[in-house]
């Protein structure tokens, strides 16, 4: 039975992904900073789907602990899915470098740190799958997503590069760019229905992408076209826009 490692297992998206894989009889390794928060999910997955599910303490910002964390996993996961991320208030981040730094580390540096380790392992095994949840916000720099968007842009570039690097070792890398998602993060917002996915839809897309070795997935099809348009607006025009 293949095993999936989910990094940042406390988010709504991560829980939906866990459920999706468990329902297809994958074993789970759930990793999150606060282990007490993921224990109930662990028991739930085990009872409902009769799979093995373990929980692990993991902090994306504790780079130095990442190596030991990955080494401690037995068995080694066949699939590693990086879900964690952090979105803070952009005005606060602009004022306070601490906040900016944390956002960059949580969305980019931390992800690179742990995925490098996983990638090295998969490379040595000549098999494995890595999936990273990036964001459409990383497609083009905008004032309203100054730091978050740039960190996700870096993460997207990393995933694309990793895909390129690992192809010849039979290791596949999936980039996931959900648009709006109904989650705890967004529950106070009125989101446009057509553009907004449920976490379960994100999970279905991730599962299909992993199985079918897709490169980049947008969850709602419209996002691919929206981002195509946004990316093609000439910069002299784009810089004047209020996005």
């Amino acid at each position, binding site marked *: 039975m293949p095993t999936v490692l989910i990094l940042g297992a406390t988010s709504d998206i991560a829980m939906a992904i866990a459920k999706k894989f468990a329902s297809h009889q994958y074993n789970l390794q759930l990793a999150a900073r606060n282990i007490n*928060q993921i224990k109930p999910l662990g*028991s739930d997955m085990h*009872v*409902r789907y009769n799979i093995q599910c373990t929980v692990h303490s993991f902090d994306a910002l504790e780079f130095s602990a990442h190596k030991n964390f990955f080494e401690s996993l037995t068995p080694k996961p066949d699939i590693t899915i990086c879900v964690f991320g952090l979105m803070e208030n952009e005005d606060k981040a602009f004022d306070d470098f601490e906040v900016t730094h944390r956002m960059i580390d949580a969305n980019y540096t931390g992800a690179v740190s742990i995925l490098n380790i996983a990638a090295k392992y998969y490379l040595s095994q000549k098999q494995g799958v890595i999936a990273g949840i990036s964001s459409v916000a990383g497609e083009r720099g905008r004032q309203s997503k100054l730091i978050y968007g740039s960190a996700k842009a870096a993460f997207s570039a990393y995933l694309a590069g990793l895909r390129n690097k690992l192809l010849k070792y039979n290791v596949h890398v999936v980039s996931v760019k959900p648009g*709006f998602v109904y989650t705890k*993060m*967004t529950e*106070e*917002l009125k989101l446009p229905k057509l553009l907004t996915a449920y976490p379960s839809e994100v999970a279905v897309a991730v599962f299909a992408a992993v199985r079918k070795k897709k490169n980049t997935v947008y969850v709602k099809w419209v996002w691919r076209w929206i981002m195509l348009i946004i990316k093609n607006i000439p910069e002299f025009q784009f810089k004047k826009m209020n996005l």
Partner: protein
Amino acid sequence: MIDDPNAKATDMKKQIANWGNYPAIESDEKTFVFDDQLAKLMKDTDSFIPRGNGRCYGDASLASNTISILKYDKILSFDEGKGIFECQSGLTLDQILEVIVPKGWFLPVTPGTKFITVGGAIGSDVHGKNHHVDGSFSNQIVDMDVMLANGETVTCSSELNHDLFEATCGGMGLTGMVTRTKFRLKKIESSYIIQKQIKAENLEEVIRLFDEYKHYTYSVAWIDCLKKGKNFGRSILILGEHAKLSQLNDKQKMDPLQLPRKKQITFPFNLPSWALNSFTVKAFNFLYYSKNRKKELNNIVSYEPFFYPLDAILHWNRGYGKKGFVQYQFVLPLHAKQGLIEILQKISNKGLGSFLAVLKVFGPQDSIISFPKEGYTLALDFPVREGLFDFLDGLDKVVLQYGGRLYMSKDARMKPEVMTAGYPELDQFKAIVRKYNPTGKIRSLQSDRLLLTKN
């Protein structure tokens, strides 16, 4: 613009109502997934009521602030050998059935819908068709954790912190938020029910039949409230037992614990309120009664149509129109059969009744705020319309006169004196609520109306 949690928080108030669609109010509904989030929410919210799947009928889980438990729905453990199940309070019974039935276990007590949460089952201390044998939901609980208004978690059971346990079972959420519950399941050999339906010509007969068949685990009667004369109170008594392996046919034996296939249809819109009138109701009741051609019908059915006939029609409550309906459920002591007759007469004279009413005989129950007590319980729906509440006030008088009481989980309109008169241990209940919820911050429209949290 894009995946942005910092955009202006829109007005979070949303329109909520319970199953009767009466009353409907604006409420600020918060959700949580983790215990620490709940503790913070409970401390930071000025006043609120816990809310499950909104399947109580009236205003018990309504308030201007609500904390929804629906995302707090994880299974914590399931001992398949001993039949002990442990979960968070937002888990719904339909989800539990999907897990336990294939393993040979069943809910020890279930109400007529499986779309309720475990938290709701405790808050209402729900009963089922087997109350006279197995008691109510609270009788199945090994122990549970309740988070109090100050964020502290207390474990309680019928032995440990007994007062908190007693006031939480049936207490409509006023003591705190049930977080974890461990309860006993019932062993089954198959997911089928051996069913017996017996037609009763009138009320006298159905009451006699209840007594004659009281050894059956499950019993309930559908009663036609509009019929007058010699067929006054004509009914169909429905009895059932879990089918044993040996009672199944060869095909059923291949997969005795099979889950029923999901066949649900959705009631698509609110019917206009004139659609239900005494003519349509009489026609429906006639058809329902006549569908059983013979006096007695014996068959074997899946548990789903037996326990949850109305769950097959999602949003059936829309049949009562936009103004909604109230469900009126009372219990009268066994010796008060005359009261039952009086009430049924008032209903049939008024011509206000619902499609069908449900009659059941409760066994004894020892608790301070739970609804069941030994006697006859009748539940029926009334669409909300002018004059209804005056009429129900009149029924309340008869209920009290015969020593009965009403079910808070169905209630949207009773007066506080009716509550006080019906529940002799209400002062004790209020004292326990004050002990664990001293500032009264956990409160609902109902608890304020019934003066349980407001003096």
